[in-house]
């Protein structure tokens, strides 16, 4: 029935319209809240949406004066705001009540059931909130937006929904929730089966509830942090505090470690499944603190016993556990202990070996024992570093520091200037035993079955391993180059490939500056071989001598040889070869001078003793002799030989002085060689076979030996001592030069520098050895004296570079 509208009727209508629209809306909202998962028809959705729209726009209201305005009118914001606020408030109250009901319902549940209930409601509510937010879209876009622009504390519908969840439901129930979560976690930790996913969804909802701040778009973690994470961490901490005390009481600290290791792994795996990723670190740290941190001292004190017993697995576990405490708290103490321990082990190993007197008699043996002791220690602890500590960089440095310590200064190598007992020299000697022929035992110490080439490579690699730790590289190289030179000229290399391998290994560590010399020496030998072939060819028909003659031409700059310190008058026969080769050489290479190094040259001679019997009578004995020895022996050769009447006499008798005069050799050398000949019964002296300057010498006509080849040329001990001293001197000279060069380099760049800084820079600049402050000071003095540097007039300790 149509109703005529009077003014009074019109005043009533808007109110009832509002109520009417609202009651429709609230029914819809309830339906969504309770059955969001079921979905809705489009038509309902549209109806509700329109309801909101109508509520906000078409409700009229009257103003004094009989006018009335529609909210659609842009100027009537007052009117529109009234209805917007009304709708907002009604929704707020309605949902509030709904949440309170849910909260009441939740009190029926506890434990896992509560978690399940909460989880279910949470999911449902999430969907519902979204839908309601869309339905109230008009409100969001108009009234709410306007309020926010005005700076009023009004949030959009979605946010409102979650606020209501939090304030009306969550806050009521959160303690019970937490209790349930903890109880569930405890059951899981105690090894029972429980559904971790329940925890996850609770955690998620904690995260989503954000903070009171509505303005920011992102969720703040306040609710999560203070209402979940902190209590959770504290609860976990208490749990593990109690557990660790129990385990410690029941068993050893080793057991404890195993237990902790397992539990931590479990917790790590689990945490990723339910905790928010931002919490993982804090959670992990809390566990570390209660499980490892509290026992730190006890755990650390287990380290050394484990090292002693080489318990790799335990060591690995200990390392992983302490690693969790961080560099400073966890690993730093281990580093110190490890370094000291390895140092001690190294020192002990060398001490044990150095006590073995007879074995250390010869330098070769001494060096072998030394290096093997070093290697055994290094291998052991490098293995532990690799297997238990996973090549941890800090512990690796500790190992290096320890090795540098015990390799360079130990029972065998004091810091004193005695370079015989220098680690670098010993190592070079060891390398010589590996690379020189006739040292089968050195190489036999390798693995059975491996070819000797492989063996050799492996041993060289091990030697390089020790090499890296030397502090006196220059001493090593001075030694090595001398050994190398000997091997080359005496053709004693066991394998060319081995020599090359060694050179390239050295190059890898120390660079090409250091090894280029070695390569040049190598090529000198190769070139000499070619030259000798050429020589033989070109003098095929014109040779002035009739024996085998081999010669190596060496570049003075690269080789550690000096001209012989004694004169020598060559036997005539030898002179012929020397002259002819010299002629060839000058034709071939021009005017360079040849310095003949007789002290390193050798000869083989066949000697026929008049009273020899058996095969020796026909074939004679083959002697290997040095050139000096050759010169002396040839004197007894004059006009001799089978058929020249020699058989009837013992040959010439010569006095000491005659021999010296004829050979022009140093008296000491002659005396030494004569003594050797007498001892070997090659010669007789008329003074009870002792060699003196007053004696007379003849060949021993009745010389006999079981061997057909006899080596009389051996390295004299006095020679060796002298060479060692020469080397020491050379090293000292080179060092002084290196220091001066370094200082000049530094000062050229810096122009002026205070004393202490110059010292420091010099030490850092020199890599081949550790310069002593005294030596640096002396070099500075020298450079001041020679005008490279000067002291500043006013600041005594400032040096200036003089261009």
């Amino acid at each position, binding site marked *: 029935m149509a109703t005529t509208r009077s003014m009074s009727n019109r005043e009533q209508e808007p109110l009832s319209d509002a109520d009417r629209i609202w009651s429709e809306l609230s029914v819809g909202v309830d339906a969504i809240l309770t059955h969001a998962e079921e979905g809705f028809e489009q038509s309902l959705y549209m109806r509700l949406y329109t309801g909101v729209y109508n509520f906000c726009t078409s409700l009229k209201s009257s103003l004094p004066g009989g006018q009335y305005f529609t909210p659609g009118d842009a100027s009537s914001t007052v009117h529109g705001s009234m209805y917007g606020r009304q709708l907002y408030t009604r929704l707020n109250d309605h949902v509030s009540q709904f949440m309170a009901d849910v909260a009441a319902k939740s009190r029926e549940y506890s434990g896992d059931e509560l978690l399940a209930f909460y989880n279910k409601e949470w999911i449902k509510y999430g969907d519902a909130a979204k839908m309601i937010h869309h339905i109230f879209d008009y409100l969001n876009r108009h009234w709410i937006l306007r309020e926010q622009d005005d700076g009023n504390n009004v949030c959009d519908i979605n946010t409102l929904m979650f606020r209501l969840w939090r304030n009306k439901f969550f806050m009521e129930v959160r303690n019970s929730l937490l209790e349930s979560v903890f109880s569930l976690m405890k059951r899981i930790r105690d090894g029972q089966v429980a559904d971790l996913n329940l925890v996850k969804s609770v955690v998620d909802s904690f995260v989503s509830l954000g903070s009171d701040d509505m303005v920011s778009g992102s969720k703040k973690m306040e609710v999560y942090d203070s209402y979940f994470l902190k209590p959770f961490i504290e609860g976990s901490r208490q749990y593990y505090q109690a557990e660790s005390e129990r385990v410690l009481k029941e068993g050893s600290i080793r057991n404890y470690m195993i237990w902790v290791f397992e539990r931590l792994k479990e917790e790590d795996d689990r945490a990723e499944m339910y905790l928010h990723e931002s919490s993982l670190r804090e959670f992990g740290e809390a566990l570390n603190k209660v499980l490892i941190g509290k026992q730190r001292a006890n755990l650390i004190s287990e380290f050394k016993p484990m090292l002693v017993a080489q318990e790799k697995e335990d060591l690995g576990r200990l390392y992983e556990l302490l690693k969790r405490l961080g560099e400073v708290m966890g690993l730093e103490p281990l580093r110190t202990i490890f370094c000291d321990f390895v140092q001690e082990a190294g020192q002990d190993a060398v001490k044990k070996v150095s006590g073995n007197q007879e074995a250390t008699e010869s330098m070769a043996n001494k060096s072998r024992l030394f290096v093997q002791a070093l290697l055994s220690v290094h291998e052991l602890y490098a293995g532990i570093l690799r297997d238990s500590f996973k090549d941890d960089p800090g512990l690796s440095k500790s190992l290096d520091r320890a090795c540098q310590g015990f390799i360079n200064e130990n029972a065998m190598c004091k810091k004193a200037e005695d370079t015989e007992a220098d680690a670098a020299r010993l190592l070079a000697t060891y390398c010589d035993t590996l690379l020189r022929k006739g040292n089968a035992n050195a190489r036999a110490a390798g693995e059975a079955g491996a070819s000797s080439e492989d063996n050799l490579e492996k041993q060289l690699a091990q030697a390089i391993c020790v090499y890296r730790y030397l502090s006196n590289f220059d001493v090593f190289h001075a030694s090595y180059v001398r050994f190398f030179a000997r091997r080359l000229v005496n053709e004693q290399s066991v394998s060319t490939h081995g020599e090359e391998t060694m050179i390239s290994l050295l190059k890898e560590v120390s660079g090409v500056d250091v090894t280029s010399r070695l390569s040049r020496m190598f090529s000198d030998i190769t070139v000499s071989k070619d030259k000798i072939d050429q020589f033989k060819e070109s003098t095929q028909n014109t040779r002035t001598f009739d024996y085998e003659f081999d010669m190596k031409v060496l570049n003075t700059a690269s080789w550690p040889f000096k001209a012989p310190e004694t004169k020598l008058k060559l036997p005539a026969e030898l002179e012929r070869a020397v002259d002819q080769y010299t002629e060839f050489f000058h034709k071939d290479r021009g005017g360079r001078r040849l310095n003949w190094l007789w002290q390193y040259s050798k000869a083989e001679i066949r000697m026929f003793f008049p009273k020899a019997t058996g095969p020796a009578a026909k074939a004679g004995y083959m002697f290997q002799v040095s050139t000096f020895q050759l010169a002396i022996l040839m004197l007894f050769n004059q006009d001799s030989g089978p058929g020249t009447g020699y058989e009837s006499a013992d040959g010439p008798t010569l006095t000491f002085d005659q021999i010296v005069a004829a050979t022009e050799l140093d008296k000491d050398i002659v005396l030494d060689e004569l003594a050797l000949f007498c001892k070997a019964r090659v010669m007789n002296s008329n003074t009870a076979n002792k060699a003196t300057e007053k004696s007379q010498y003849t060949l021993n006509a009745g010389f006999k030996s079981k061997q057909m080849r006899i080596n009389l040329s051996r390295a004299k001990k006095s020679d060796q001592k002298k060479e060692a001293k020469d080397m020491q001197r050379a090293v000292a000279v080179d060092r002084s030069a290196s220091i001066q060069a370094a200082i000049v380099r530094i000062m050229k760049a810096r122009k002026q520098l205070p004393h202490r800084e110059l010292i420091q820079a010099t030490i850092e600049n020199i890599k081949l050895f550790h310069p002593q*402050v*005294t030596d640096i*000071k*002396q070099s500075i003095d020298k450079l*001041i004296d020679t005008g490279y540097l000067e002291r500043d007039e006013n600041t*005594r300790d400032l040096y200036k570079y003089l261009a």
Partner: protein
Amino acid sequence: MAKGGDLQAWFIEYQDLDRTDGRVVIMPEGFEKLCDALEFNLEEIEPMVLLWKLNGVELATIEFEGWESGMRAMNVKDIKGLKAAILSTVQEFENDPVLFKTFYRKVFDYLRPEQQRSVSAEDAVAVLPVVTGNSWVFEKFVKYLQANSDSIKVISRDQWQSLLELSKALSPDLSNYSNEDAWPAMFDGFVDWAKNTKPEAAK
């Protein structure tokens, strides 16, 4: 007695006239004669100062140019004036360390053989006491050189100059010397020796 104002004539009184190399110098004998006239003791500092003030070229050797400019600089016309000037310079050394330093450094060059960079330890031992009479550091250093005459043969310029600085810086108990400081390397040995040979000095 030289006639006042005539530096050249005065010079000639002491000049070495037997020379054949054309050099115009006062050589050792002339120098001694001059010192006599001045009543200077050859074993004390004055002759050295005289040499310096007259721009000597070597020990006991003075050339005319040096003589002339030196005399003018001192504003001296006769022997009395010369003596006074020299004595006053010696006095000045007490108050003017910079002046003394210049003198002290020049002495090194007088001792140095022409072609060499350094001074023999022997010469240093002879001259240092003369030039640095009452300084305990120099005294000790001279003893050190004497005790180590087999191993220490020369003193370099830097060591000579640094010695003066050391004498000012070193404390009587030798406690403020450090091997890590910027002293010439030789001083390390000196201070070590000093510490071991004079325990009373170390309080």
